[in-house]
């Protein structure tokens, strides 16, 4: 049996986490908003998509829209929900923001469990509408899905790159570094942050959540626990918080490395030990990296370093020359 479809599926999942990590990087890496509510945003987007596409006569009835319309709808809904959550929480600072977003994500998951009529509760939503599934054999579909995930990743990457090269991205990083100073030069810091949160919500609902839904095939609340949030964070930290591509690379490395463990063939009696090895491997990967490359595989300074003139380089690297020049 070929392992190719397996790897296509692993990579699809890696790209989902990678997209979420690129978006998290905009708000947390550049914006300094350490958001622990990613799973909540993805859940809002995923359930919005599922309910917009689900036929009106299904077990969990929906609107029966085509997939692309549902993607747009999910994007808008997630954007509005994010802005509504962001409006009060973004007034909080540091760990207070962190814990509040964490709480909101859990509230969203509990709402999904309780609102059985709307979401199917813990039984979930099955019969997900996967785009173009009718044109391909089920055995070929993992590759189609990988292609769709890759296309969505390219879009997220384009947005992330645009942000990193824009006045907005620069302002975001400045406000993170020194908020009073940013205000003193006319930046409406609160507005910039809410807009950022809304942008991340829009992209999450439009691209991340639908691809995650296609990958899952069926929605249950258990797919949106804090495990998802921490996976995205781990990917971003491994890749490099504040870098341009770190989130994507880190997330793909992380998922591929941890799924590769499954391919090790062992006696059935050791299978549970192998399963326990997976989180162990992630932990080791993280510790090794943070010990030797604390900024991640890529770094913010590396990402935004201008092509310095040779003279600049000498002076920057040599504090004594710097003193001499500036005296």
């Amino acid at each position, binding site marked *: 049996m070929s392992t190719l479809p397996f790897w296509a599926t692993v990579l699809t999942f890696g790209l989902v986490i990678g997209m979420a990590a690129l978006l998290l990087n905009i708000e947390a890496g550049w914006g300094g908003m350490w958001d622990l509510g990613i799973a909540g945003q993805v859940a809002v987007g995923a359930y919005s998509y599922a309910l917009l596409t689900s036929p009106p006569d299904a077990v969990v009835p929906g609107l029966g829209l085509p997939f692309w319309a549902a993607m747009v709808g999910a994007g808008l809904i997630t954007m509005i929900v994010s802005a509504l959550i962001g409006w009060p929480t973004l007034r909080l600072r540091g760990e207070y923001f962190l814990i509040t977003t964490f709480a909101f994500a859990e509230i969203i998951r509990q709402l999904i469990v309780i609102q059985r009529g709307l979401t199917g509760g813990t039984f979930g939503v099955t019969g997900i509408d996967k785009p173009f599934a009718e044109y391909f054999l089920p055995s070929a579909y993992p590759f189609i899905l990988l292609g769709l995930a890759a296309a969505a990743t390219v879009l997220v990457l384009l*947005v992330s790159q*645009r*942000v990193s*090269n*824009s*006045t*907005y*991205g*620069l*302002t975001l*990083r*400045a406000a*993170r*570094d*020194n908020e*009073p*100073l*940013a*205000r*003193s*030069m*006319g*930046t*409406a*810091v609160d*507005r*910039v942050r809410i*807009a*950022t949160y809304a*942008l991340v919500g829009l992209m999450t609902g439009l691209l991340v959540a639908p691809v995650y839904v296609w990958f899952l095939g069926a929605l249950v609340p258990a797919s949106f626990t804090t495990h998802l949030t921490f996976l995205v964070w781990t990917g971003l930290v491994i890749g490099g918080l*504040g870098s341009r591509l770190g989130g994507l690379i880190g997330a793909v490395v992380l998922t591929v490395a941890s799924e590769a463990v499954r391919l090790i063939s062992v006696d059935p009696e050791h299978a549970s030990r192998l399963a326990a090895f997976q989180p162990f491997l992630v932990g080791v990967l993280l510790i090794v990296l943070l010990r030797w490359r604390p900024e991640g595989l890529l770094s*913010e*300074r590396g990402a*935004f*370093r*201008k092509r*310095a*003139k040779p*003279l*600049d*380089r000498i*002076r*920057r690297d040599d*504090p004594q020359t*710097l*003193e001499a*020049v*500036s*005296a």
Partner: protein
Amino acid sequence: MSAVLEVRGVGKTFGGVTALADVDLTVSTAEITALVGPNGAGKTTLFNVISGFGAPYTGEIVFDGVRLTGRKAHEIARLGLVRTFQTPVGFPSLTVHDNLVVAAGGHGFDGPQDALLRPRADRRGLRAAAERADQLLGEAGIEHLASAYMAGLSPGDLKLLEIVRQLASRPRMLLLDEPAAAMDVNQIGTLSRLIRGIAAQDVGILVIDHNLAFVLELADRVHVLDAGRLLAGGTPEEISRNADVRRVYLGEEAA
């Protein structure tokens, strides 16, 4: 020469402590106004109140004919009233050049809309801000620091950059919070020339410092603040002769 900033009867209390009481102050363009006073006199509190970081307060502050009461810090900055900070940390993870770019474009840098929906206009704005940053670095004679980070700069350069950065947005008025602190005699000379050059371009300047020698040499008008109250105001000559000032500020007993 015209009044650009008017502070009328401003008072501020923290709990039961009176930080400022009935302070009146006028700053005109094309001259340098200084505010001196010992530590804890309320100088920085007055700065915070003027620049929108110290609400609420009593009294009235008018800038260029606009009442500042109730306005947020970024709104006041957009009116052209820009301050510096005592600790010149800047934006530590941005290069010196990018520090100035943010300041030069600060007013228009509001959210992701322009970046995503009008990328061409956004790039133009960024390029214009980068050119302004180059020009400022050149004028201040610190082009060689363009790609350095704050952590690699000497204390004097940091202080200089704090002022150059806030000039980037072409303010109508600058509030300078202890610009000469941590500077040596040579750097203070450069600083004085820079500040005079700014004032000559019709920018109002209010500087606070407790280095009396620096202030008396630099300013056209000096106000002395003590325990939240204005003690005296006048030309540097008048201030240096004022018996109250000598007693409070220099610790001299009245003769």
